[in-house]
Every structure is written in C-alpha cells, then in structure tokens.
C-alpha cells in the first residue's frame, strides 16, 4: 500500500472529489507513532484499486482541532468518534464519545517511557 501524506485543506477537496466520482469510504484508522498521531483514510475507487491518505497531528500542540468529513460522508460518523475518544484528538462537529464511559480518557495513546 502506498500512502500519500496531505494537509487538512487538501483533505476536504479530495473528499469532495471522490464523493462525486462514485468511490466508497472503507474506514478511518488512527495510530500512535511516537511523537505524533496519524489519521489514515482508506477509499475504494475501482476493481482492485484503493487509495490511502494520511494526516499528521502532533501530540505536543495541545489537542488541536481537525475538521472532520462527516458532512460530506455520513458513513464516517462512528469511525471519527472512535478516533477522537481513543487517541484524544478533537474533531469538529462530532460529539467525542461513542463506545467508552466518561471516566476513561485516551486508552490507546502510549505513555512516554
């Protein structure tokens, strides 16, 4: 798989373009990579063809907000809620919780050794 690293304004354009061309959203995956958190978007665009885009969110920046794509793709609602509550990343226009209780905060984020 080859991943393209993009910035946030580019993501909104790419999401709109793919919605118009008939692709489908597979899912949104969050990973912890040491100094920052990566959010990867997977799209299915044709027979045996997939595209992956990645956004990098630094941890020390104090939980800055990223804008979600739920107003373009309604299917991204549960996945964005899960990335937001498991890694502590704030996403605009979605409530932050879906699966966990209020007393648990960001369990998948690694503590610095």
């Amino acid at each position: 798989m080859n991943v393209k690293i993009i910035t946030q304004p580019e993501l909104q354009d790419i999401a709109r373009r793919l919605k118009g061309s008939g692709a489908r959203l597979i899912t949104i995956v969050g990973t912890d990579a040491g100094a920052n958190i990566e959010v990867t978007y997977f799209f299915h665009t044709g027979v045996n063809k997939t595209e992956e885009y990645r956004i990098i969110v630094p941890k020390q920046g104090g939980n800055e907000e990223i804008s979600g794509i739920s107003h373009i793709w309604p299917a991204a609602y549960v996945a964005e809620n899960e990335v937001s509550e498991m890694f502590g990343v704030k996403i605009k226009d979605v409530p932050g919780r879906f699966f966990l209780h209020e007393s648990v905060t960001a369990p998948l984020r690694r503590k610095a050794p």
Partner: protein
Amino acid sequence: MRSTIQFGPQHPVWIEPLRLKLTMDGEIVKDVELEAGYVHRGLEKKFEWDYNKGAYLSERICGICTQHHSTCYCLAVEGTMKLEITRRAAAIRTIMLELERLHSHLLAIGLTLEAIGFENLFMLCFRNREIVLDVFERTTGNRVLHGINIVGGVTRNIGPEMAKEIMDFCDVMEKRCRDLESMITHSYTIRERMKGVGVLTKQVAIDYSVVGPIARGSGVPYDVRIDAPYLLYNELKLKPIVEESCDVWARSVVRVRELFQSIDLIRQLVPLLEGLPDELAAKSKTLPEGDAFARVEPPRGELFYFARGKKSKEMDRIKVRTSTYANGPALVPVIKGCHLADVGVITISYDPCIGCFDR
C-alpha cells in the same frame, strides 16, 4: 404530543444489547438515536502481543463469522511478513469459508422468521444447520471456534475420504434447501408481511457506504469476492446476486439465493484438492514490519483488518472494522417514519452482530 420509548439494551427480539431511543408521535417514529458500547471488551489493546496467539484471539470476536475473522487476521499479518502460503492451504481455507456462509445465512433467515412470529420455520432452519456443524466437527474438531488457521497456513488436512463425504453432504444439503426455499417464496403470509417494510433507497445506500446483503438488496452490486479477489476466488465462476425492491423481503431473498451459490462453489472447489502436495504450513524467516491490510467477505458484509508490525514478536497496532460497524449509521434513515411494530423486524433484517460492532 411526543413521547419517548426506549427500545432498550435488553429486548427479546435481538440477541445482543443495543439501545435505540425512539421519539414517537402516536404510532409513527419521528426520531431515533443509536447508542452502543455495552459489550466493549477493549480487544484492540490486547492484540499488541505475540502474533501467533493473536489468531486464537481474533476468532473469538464473533461466534458466527469466526472463520472469516481468523483468515483475515492471518492474511494481514502474512502481508507484513511477505509470506506466501501453499496452494493446498488456500484451498482448505476457501472451503471452510464457504461452509461458514451456509450456516450463518441459515441462522439469519431463521431469526428473521422468528421476528415475524413464524416459529416452526425457525426450528426447521436450525435443524438444517445441524448437519453443517457436524461437517465442521469432523474436519476441524469443534462446532464453532475452529482454531485451524495459523499464520502461514492451516493445521488440519482434508483427505480423500473426507472430500467424498463433503460431496455427499452437498447433495443432502441442496435437497433440504430447495424445500426451505419453496416454503418461503411461495407463502402468501410471509411475503405480505415483509414487502414494503423498511425501504432503503439506492441513493441513500450509496451515500452511507453500506456493505453486504443490505447493499445487494438495494441494487448496489458490491461483493469483495469479485471486486478485490483473495485466496482462490479469481479461479471460480460467480456473479453477484442483486435484488431491486430495497425492502426486508429483498434482503431475505438475497440470503436464500446465496445458499445455492455457496453449495455450487463448494462443488467447484473440492476437485481442486486432488493431486496437490501435502504441505500445510509455511515457515517464515522474517518478523512483521510495516503496514498491510486485508479484506474478506463474511456473510454479513465486508471485513477489514489493518496490521502494523515493529520488527519484533509483538504487533504494534491492529484495527478491526466489521460489517455492522459500517451498517450501523444506516439504521437511522430507515427507522424514521416507520410504525412501532416494524422496528424489530427491520433491525433483525440488517443482521446485526453487536459483538463485532463493539469488539
């Protein structure tokens, strides 16, 4: 004047806990709110251990699509290690996947019939399901939670006597499924109860990116076995089964017709086992490193696993996205505007597996 009814976590219609908060105006539903997380076990954190033991953990996420979960996990981890499996192991895995589709669709059809009140046919579906579970016990050792998939191949073999028994089983199963199909499709009561209920139009289905028999019952021909083939599926002949009427009746007919497609695929696969050398598992010389993902088609929809290794025996990150995870938000536009007596039937026709949803 509006009143709120809680279709609560415990309800006799469905098996696992799921909460729907309905705002009613008389008998019609005006607004619905979905809440899940009652069976959340935190498995994505537990997957960061020895990658061999992860195969036994991944098959316990769901009890009905268990073979698909362990196959997809093994395909994703083998992708990070760049490991090729032998052809005999790929053929045995594909036969097990098609047998799994048979017993899962019989359970889903039985539960839909029980939700409308026809308990006799529900018992008949389960009686047919027992002979499929007998075949599983003879080949793998257990009725559910089989445990024959390991990273690199399989552990048990299908010999020539077992192959002949599977072909005899296909004949018995086809006769029983034909009887079941004629009882369901020629029945006036079942058809009138299910037609026109819970309509999911084609445009809404494409917007919400639904997967599985729900998409195929609404006219969207998406099937992972044809759009992104894995294992031995690019050598078999199959076509997607699509219905156009977008309601509960269309989804049930899609499931009934897929039973016969699975029996036909097993009949094409068993002759491919002859003449292959007897190697079942391949040993790997490297440790998992980098990113990889894999997709398969369980009976409920599309399953997606993402794996990342960090050059040691423990995995770095595994992400599971199941089919109910993708179809859950699509419940909301369908339940809005329907009668209260139809909420149970519509939810069961989506075939929800909350153990897969929450992990």
